[in-house]
Structures are given as C-alpha cells and as structure tokens.
C-alpha cells in the first residue's frame, strides 16, 4: 500500500518533499461555465451600460459618442435631482416606519396569547399579495369622492383626504401602502431573531430586579441587533427599488410629485427612448446604492464586533 501512502501525503517514500500542487492552475477550466454566465449576465451588461451612457442613443435613431455629456446633463437636470430627493424621502419613511412597527409586532407575537397562530397568519397576509394587484385595489380606495377611505374618515367625523391626488400627500400615502405591505416581513425576521435569544440573561436580570423596559433596552435590543440590521438592509433595498406600486397608483404624479428615480429612469428609457441618458441614470443610481450598501455593511460589521 506504499503507493496509497505516497498519494495521500504527496511524497514518495525516501523522496524529497515536492511543492504542493496548485489545483487552481490545473482545474481552472472548471470555472469556465460559471465564469461565462457571470460575464454574460452581469459583467457584460454593466460594461455595455457604461458604454451606452457615453452615447446619445435613441431607439430607432443613430448612436453618437458624447463622452461625459449625459453625466454633465444629469447634474443640472432639476427633474433628476428632485427624483433623488424624493427617492430618499420615500425610502427613509418606508424603512423606518416598518422597522418600528415590525419590531413592536414581533414583540407582541413573541408573547403567548390565545389564537396567536391565527393572528400571526392574518398579520402576514399583505406580504403575500401581488404588488400590482395591491396597487390597483388601493387606487380604487384612494378615489377622493368615491373611495372607501374617505367614506371611513367621514364616518368618524374627520375631513376627507386627497391621498395620492395631491402633491402634498402623495408620498406619505404611498409610504402608507408600502408600510402595510412590508411590515410583516420585518416582523417575521425579528420574530425569528426573538425566538433564538437565550433565556439566561433575562433570568439573571429578573433576579437583579430589572424592569421589563430595562430588559428590553439592555438585553433584547443588543441581542436582536444583527437581525435588525438584516431587516434594515432588506427593507432599504426593497424601498430603493420600489417601482410597481408607485407606477400603478400615480405614474409619478400628480405632476412629478411622486417621481422617484426608478420612475424617472423608466420614463427616460421606455417612454422617451433616451437609452444613453437612461444608462447614465442607471450608473449614478448604482453608485448611490453601492454607497448605501457600504454604509449598511459597515454598520453590520460594527454591530457584530460589538
């Protein structure tokens, strides 16, 4: 069995030890299929998008090299700049409110009470609905004269609202839809986190006379932090890429009052067919997302270290 031994340790009996084999060099072609897929579906589209962003390219028209002109135009395009502000406003509200409500719901559902399973199921139902269908139903409910929401407000003596039909209330109203739709997801993530927390620290705190608030603030919240960061990252990504709900309900209106960067990008690419300019928007949007992702990952690393 000397041969087997030589194979196992990589040396022949009595021979000088050989250099370790470089398997990466020998089997590099194993990664070729995967590399080709990555190249074709991720790298090439990105390189092509950057290339297109440097052209004046309209569908059905000629393509002309313009260098950085599209980026220069973006900097002075008031509509684009306002769309970034709206995106941040919408994203901020659509992340913070579901996080707070999701945490409260998770704390409530972590306790034992009658029909808890049924209540949880009902709570997560909105998350299962198709966004476009949800948006269409909300659109009907928002109708200022005929919608059920204003009827309900009037039943309790409140004045009717313009909901998505007024520039002042359109984004808070869209956030309301987003909160209704996605708070259950945050709740589910945090509920999973709460279920995994150890009991010992709570028992020790109880013996030391800690109040429920102190237990929550000094034990639950720090231990739940990694889960909160995960929920925060998922919600931020979801809110940043929100398109279908906004497009179906308002198409960016009234005027441009709810035109987020995704709606602006969609219009440039698929309504005005300014593919070069739209590509520049994609590149800038990508840079913004990378920046935000880095901040979130840095936060996550800090939480882990702590």
């Amino acid at each position, binding site marked *: 069995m000397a041969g087997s031994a030589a194979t196992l340790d990589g040396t022949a009996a009595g021979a000088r030890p050989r250099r370790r084999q470089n398997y990466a060099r020998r089997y590099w072609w194993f990664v070729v299929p995967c590399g080709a897929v990555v190249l074709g579906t991720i790298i090439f589209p990105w390189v092509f998008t950057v290339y297109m962003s440097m052209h004046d390219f*309209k569908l059905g*028209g000629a393509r002309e090299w313009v260098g950085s002109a599209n980026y220069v135009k973006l900097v002075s395009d008031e509509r684009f700049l306002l769309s970034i502000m709206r995106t941040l406003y919408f994203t901020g509200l659509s992340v913070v409110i579901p996080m707070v409500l999701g945490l409260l719901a998770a704390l409530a559902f972590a306790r034992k009470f009658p029909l808890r399973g049924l209540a949880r199921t009902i709570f997560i139902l909105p998350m299962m609905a198709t966004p476009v269908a949800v948006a269409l139903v909300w659109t009907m409910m928002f109708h200022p004269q005929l919608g059920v929401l204003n009827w309900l407000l009037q039943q309790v003596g409140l004045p009717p609202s*313009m909901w998505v*039909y007024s*520039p002042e209330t359109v984004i808070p109203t869209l956030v309301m839809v987003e909160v209704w739709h996605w708070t259950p997801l945050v709740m589910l993530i945090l509920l999973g986190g709460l279920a995994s927390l150890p009991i010992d620290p709570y028992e020790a705190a109880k013996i030391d006379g800690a109040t429920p608030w102190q237990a929550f603030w000094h034990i639950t919240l720090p231990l739940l932090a990694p889960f909160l960061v995960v929920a925060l990252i998922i919600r931020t990504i979801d809110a940043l890429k929100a398109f279908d709900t906004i497009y179906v309900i308002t198409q960016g209106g009234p*005027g441009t009052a709810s035109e987020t960067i995704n709606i602006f990008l969609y219009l440039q690419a698929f309504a005005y067919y300014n593919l070069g300019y739209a590509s520049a928007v994609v590149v800038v949007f990508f840079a913004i997302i990378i920046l935000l992702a880095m901040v979130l990952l840095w936060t996550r690393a800090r939480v882990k270290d702590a």
Partner: protein
Amino acid sequence: MTHGFTRRTALLAGAGVLAAPPLVRQANAQSQFDWKRFSGERIEVSLTANPRSQILIQNQREFEDMTGIRVGAEAIPEQQHRQKFAIEFATGRPSFDVVGISLHVNKRQVGKARWCTDIKALMADPTITAPDFDFADFGEGAVAYSTQADGRMDTLPEFTDYFILYYNKELLAAKNIAPPATFDDMYESARRLTDTSRQIYGNVGRGLRNANVVLYSSFLLGTQQRDFLDGQRRLISDTPDAIWAGEYYKKLLRDCSPPGVSGFNWNESQTTFMQGRAAFWLDGVGFAAPLEDRTRSRVAGKVGYAVVPRGPAHHHCAMFGTAFGIAEQSRKKGASWMYLQWASGKANQLRYLTSGAGSPARTSAYRNEEAISQSRFSREFFNTLIESARISRPGLPEIVPVTEFRDTLGSALTNTIGGADVATELRRATEAFRPVLEQSERES
C-alpha cells in the same frame, strides 16, 4: 378501320376530368379575387388591448376560414404595447408581422425608422387586393393621418378617435341648462351645476400629467393659433393663445371639477361621470359603451352627446387615430396585407360603430342606416360622431418625442390646477422642451 373507345382515349378522358377542377379554379382566379392565395401561412399580430382589438380577436375565425391563414394575435395594454413593439422593431427582428399603432404617439417614430412597409404597392396589386376593398371609403383625415411626410403610407387606418362632450341630461335638466355651444357657455354652466355640498361637479376631466395634454389641446384648437407648432415646426406653446387655453383649462378644472382632479386620468373621470357626480366630461368617443352599460353605470340612458364647444376663434375637436402596419422585416407581407384588408374592412368597421367600440376610419359605416337604427346608441351619438369628423384636427403635434412633450407640458398644466401661474408654467415647459424638439427635428 374502326376507331372505337380505346384504352388511350379512356386515359385521356380520365385525365381531363381530374384536371378540370384546378383549371376552373385557375380560370376563376383570373376573373375573381382569391382570398385563399396565402392559405396555410401563419402570421403574428400584435395589438393594443381595447374593445376594438377584442372585436378583431373574437371574429378572427372568420378571417381564418375565409383565407386559410392562421393568426396568432395578442392584445396587451397600451403603454406596454407601445414599448414592446418599439423595442422589437429596434432589434431588427420583430416577432410580429402586423402591428397596431397609435398614430398620435408613434407615427413619426415609426416613419422615421422605416419600421413598417409602404402599403401603396400592396394596395396597387390587384392579385392581392380584394376588388371590394374600396380605399376611397376611408375618410380623408384618416388617410392623411396614415401618410408620412415623405408620401409613404406605412399604415392602414383603423380607428379615428374624436373628443366629444358627454353630459348628464338629468343634471342639466334639473337646472334648465342647455348643452353648451361655446367654451364660455361650458364654463358658466359648469359653475352653475357645481354643488360641492352634494359632491356634484359641473365638470370632470383629465388632470394627470401627460394624459391632460389632450384635453388642453381641445381648448387650444379653438384659438386662432390652433396648433402646438408653427409653419417652421417650431414650438409655440407659450403664446397668448396657448396661455388663454391654459387659463381656461385651469379655471375649468380648478373651479368646477372634483377635488383631486390633478391626479385624474380617463379612468377616474369615467368613474366620477358614471356615478352621476359630474355634469360634463370632454373625452374620447370610445367611452360611450361603458357609460351606457346598465350593469356598471348609474347614468346609462341619461347620457347626452355633443360636439366639443366652439372656441373663441375656431370650432374643432381633437382627433387621434390608430392604424395597422406591416413590419418591413416580415416575410409574410402578402398574408399580412390580407389581414389588414379584413381588419379594416367594412364589416369590422361597422362592428366598431354599432358596438360603441369607437368611430371607424371608413365613412360607409356612418351611412349604414339599418345598422345604426338597430344600435343601442342614440341618434344623437351618431350625429355627434359625424359632426365631429367634419370639424376634427389632430390633437397632438406629429413629432417623434411626443411622450416627452406630453410629460413636460402635462406637468405644467397639472401645476396650474394647484394654483401655479399659467404663463410662467407654460413658458418654463416650452423652454424645457424646445431643445428636445429642435434636436429631434434635426435628426429627422
């Protein structure tokens, strides 16, 4: 020598009998049009989802039986369809042979890129054009709409949409008000009819960006200027006439329309009108069918129809149109041309008219008294259509970036409903869009 009935004679006679039917068919083909000429082929048809496409798809079997051509038809929502066919055309290999096109949006784009074939050559070929095709039956306006600036006719007219005035007879009768003849009358009546305590409004209409431009253009058409472009195709959307139309739009939607109208497209307007909450609604002719649907509409049987009121200088109504084109890359142009003849044929055009799906591009449909008398729509409706056809003008400028134009001007108009100054908004929108148009015109 006897010449009896030999075996050779029998074979010759048999061959003659067998050959007779094809010979007769061939002889008939020379004297009569052969709808089966492209039998066995399959064509793909891409349409916008609307009641007219529904009629075509429902009756498609009739075409397939008549021609032996199989049809794969799809009908997808308007916005998505416009993008889909433009992107498919741009790839150079569209998946369809026949496409339905909104001329008021895509005419110049399709013409500039030469995506559709010139149908004049097909129309001139008697072997593939039915003798009863009757091109002269198409209205002049519809033919002009389908013809590009260079004279190419790359689509066959299907439907001509006119803006008309819908009014609630009951609401008008309650206040003893007659249908308005002028824009001033319309505003005064709308103000009188508005009763906010009962949530009844004198008017409802499009306030949403982009969609609202077609309502605004209905007012602009009544001015001396009438158009968005001057003779040199320069943008003139900030002139005194344009501002007058803007002021009228603002006061009608601000003073006499429901709160939140700045976010209303046609569907919200339709819902409001159907529920009996608005007295006037200026919009496309195709909405007559849902308004008269007793299962959905509270105003069915109470809807009045009238032409758009007269403006301070002219009397016009905005016209929009759709047509069918054959993809330049299609290898089944013959079969596709057969489909176009059937789709825009007299029978389907009459179906459009009598079902309320829209106003046909052929004039013969309007002259069919028997069909009209059996229709569920009133004589007033048909008279309005005929009169609208007489006073119609294109409601949007024939430019490539028409969607961008509608968005830019539409945002300005929406802002005016919120109280913004009309002149300032129109000037800003004009300044923003002018370079886009100039670049587009240079490239054209």
